């Protein structure tokens, strides 16, 4: 099955490559120019000039992020260090009667020692063992905990990227999400984050880059806002520093 499937994919690919030439020639023909093989100069790349230099102070970034994220229905707390993060998570777990918790396999989160602190809660570390159904572990979790790789105050967004130790499911499947933003990762504009992906280039990009700007929501029933339709319905952001 695997071999025949690979053979089939290879067959599809050769058909697709032939089709691709035909497709691009067709487009160039209709556009009335010969096939372009080098990158055309792109004078309008990215945001307008006035925006490229725009930036808020650290305090303004915290304030704007908080206003935007709370307007979207999320909760924001400013904490001074990871010690306070630990107490916050522990008291929240008790308050919400959490039974299952999952966090990314990151050094800052592992150091919180949640497993030891919360004896009644089953705490798992994403992808820390190979023969585990990690999606199921995330799906059963009451709370998922992630470190934000970036945050954007202008849109009130946290940004999480995937890796071996950082599951996409951890910020998606649990009922509640706690995201920790180290203050220095909080930017003003989307463009400050996006430029990093351009500069990193294709080969360095992770499979999943997710901007999250509040709890999952829908207004599909009579325009009546509901929270937590598919993703987490409760989102806490802890800004640290």
């Amino acid at each position, binding site marked *: 099955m695997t071999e025949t499937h690979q053979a089939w994919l290879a067959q599809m690919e050769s058909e697709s490559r032939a089709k691709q030439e035909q497709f691009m020639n067709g*487009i160039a023909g209709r556009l009335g120019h010969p096939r372009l093989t080098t990158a055309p100069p792109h004078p309008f790349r990215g945001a307008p000039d006035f925006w490229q230099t725009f930036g808020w102070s650290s305090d303004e970034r915290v304030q704007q992020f908080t206003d935007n994220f709370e307007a979207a229905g999320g909760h924001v707390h400013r904490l001074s260090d990871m010690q306070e993060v630990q107490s916050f998570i522990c008291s929240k777990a008790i308050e919400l009667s959490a039974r299952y918790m999952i966090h990314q396999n990151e050094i800052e989160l592992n150091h919180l020692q949640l497993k030891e602190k919360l004896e009644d809660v089953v705490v798992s570390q994403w992808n820390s063992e190979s023969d585990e159904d*990690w999606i199921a572990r995330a799906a059963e979790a009451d709370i998922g905990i992630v470190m934000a790789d970036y945050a954007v105050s202008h849109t009130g967004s946290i940004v999480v990227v995937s890796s071996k130790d950082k599951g996409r499911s951890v910020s998606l499947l649990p009922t509640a999400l706690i995201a920790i933003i180290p203050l220095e990762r909080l930017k003003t504009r989307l463009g400050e984050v996006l430029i990093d992906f351009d500069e990193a280039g294709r080969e360095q990009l992770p*499979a999943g880059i997710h901007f999250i700007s509040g709890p999952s929501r829908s207004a599909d029933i009579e325009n009546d806002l509901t929270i937590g339709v598919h993703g987490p319905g409760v989102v806490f952001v802890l800004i640290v520093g």
Partner: protein
Amino acid sequence: MSKTDMKGTTVKGRAELALNDDFLRKAVKFTTERLRDGKRKASDDLGNWEEWRERGRQIRLHTIAHLDYYLNQFANQARLNGVHVHFADTAEDAVKITLAIAERKQALSVVKSKSMVTEELHLNQALESIGVDVVESDLGEYIIQLAGETPSHIIIPAIHKNRYQIADLLSKEAGETLPPDTAILAGFVRKKLREKFLEADIGMTGCNFAIAETGSMVLFENEGNARMVSTVPSTQITLMGMERIIPSWSDLEVMATLLPRSATGQKLTVYMSGITGPRRQEDGDGPDEMHIIILDNGRSLQLGDPEFQELLNCIRCGACLNACPVYRHIGGHAYGGTYSGPIGAVLTPALNKNIDQWDDIASASTLCGACYEACPVKIPLHDMLIYLRRRKVERGLGDKMESIGMRGFAAIMSNSKRYENALKVGKLAQRLVVKDGEITSKLGPLKGWNNYRVAPSLAKQSFRDQWGTMEEEIRHGLQEIDPLVSNRMEEIVRNREAGGKGHD
């Protein structure tokens, strides 16, 4: 064919059905006004909206003008990421490829997130025909799937359903009676679809933008279902229109600034996901196999056409629907195609290249230009509607009565004697239908007009009749100017000549 079916075949017929549905009309008006006000507030709050809009237009124009380069780059980069890229000239080709993948994967079930392209393909029916269970996972799409209907708004597909109708539909699915309470209904859907996500063999998505330089695809959504579909099942199939390309992640900042604000008034949708290939070998989640099917289906016909190329700049925000006075009254289903509102009125005939079958869709507009004003990438939709009407007439598909009428109008208007006689005939003839100075008859030549309005009767004494007297008054009246006024005017002139300010 029943009478209702007959009625349903033209925009006018479908609009009549929509206009008779009181709930639909109110719901559409309410929602679109809310979205429109949200957009206005969001664009005002942002500031410099016109500069953002212009930049959005420039990026889209640039990309489309060099589409062969950027699309080719995207396909090559996506392949390097491990994506299986396919090209489909037509809807049939895209369906064939999708079904082949589903059969190869021996898929029993597919979960889909919202994709207008798959609506274009009627993909759900095709998958069901080979025994694959297809579930729409966007809340609104799920509701209309249960109802067996099509989306009536690009952003809020179930805009035409009220909570009681939705409760009925979901109760059938639940096997118990659910109360018409939004939170309970949404909670039921969350639970029900969670099972579907976890057991599905294939996740299917659309694509808001595709980034050429890195071969990444970008999805905007609020519910999290697009993330589910692209994270949980082991195979992902993404369908994208060939024009969805932007060059870089930096360009995404502009699109991310324009799209959510224009669609729902949000600063950013709850989720914006950039997906670059299937899971890396060591990753704990994400699809093992990822396919992207790039669809033409009439899009390339707009390339090189000076009147319609800009259609490909569309970022599918729905702002033109919310701004359109016609859409707000008749709703999406009246347009009869996948895409509704002003963009649908132009896109549907353009993609289908069968202007005769969609002959009346371009007429479902008042040409007021509100769609252009609302468009975040400044597509001149109102001009395009006129081009469509012109092309329809050039192909001899114009309204026969209208062209006969126009010819008659020309003949009468070009000769004053004929016009005078026509007026005389009209004045005599109208006696049969005039009542209290108004004509309300819905018979004869005024039928279309009088369906929704009342025509005034021809004046007893027409402008033409009065012209002789009026001309006389104008020419000679000046001599009889009020002496007071005359004195004042002379005073002003004297004053000005003396160097004073005439008025300040």
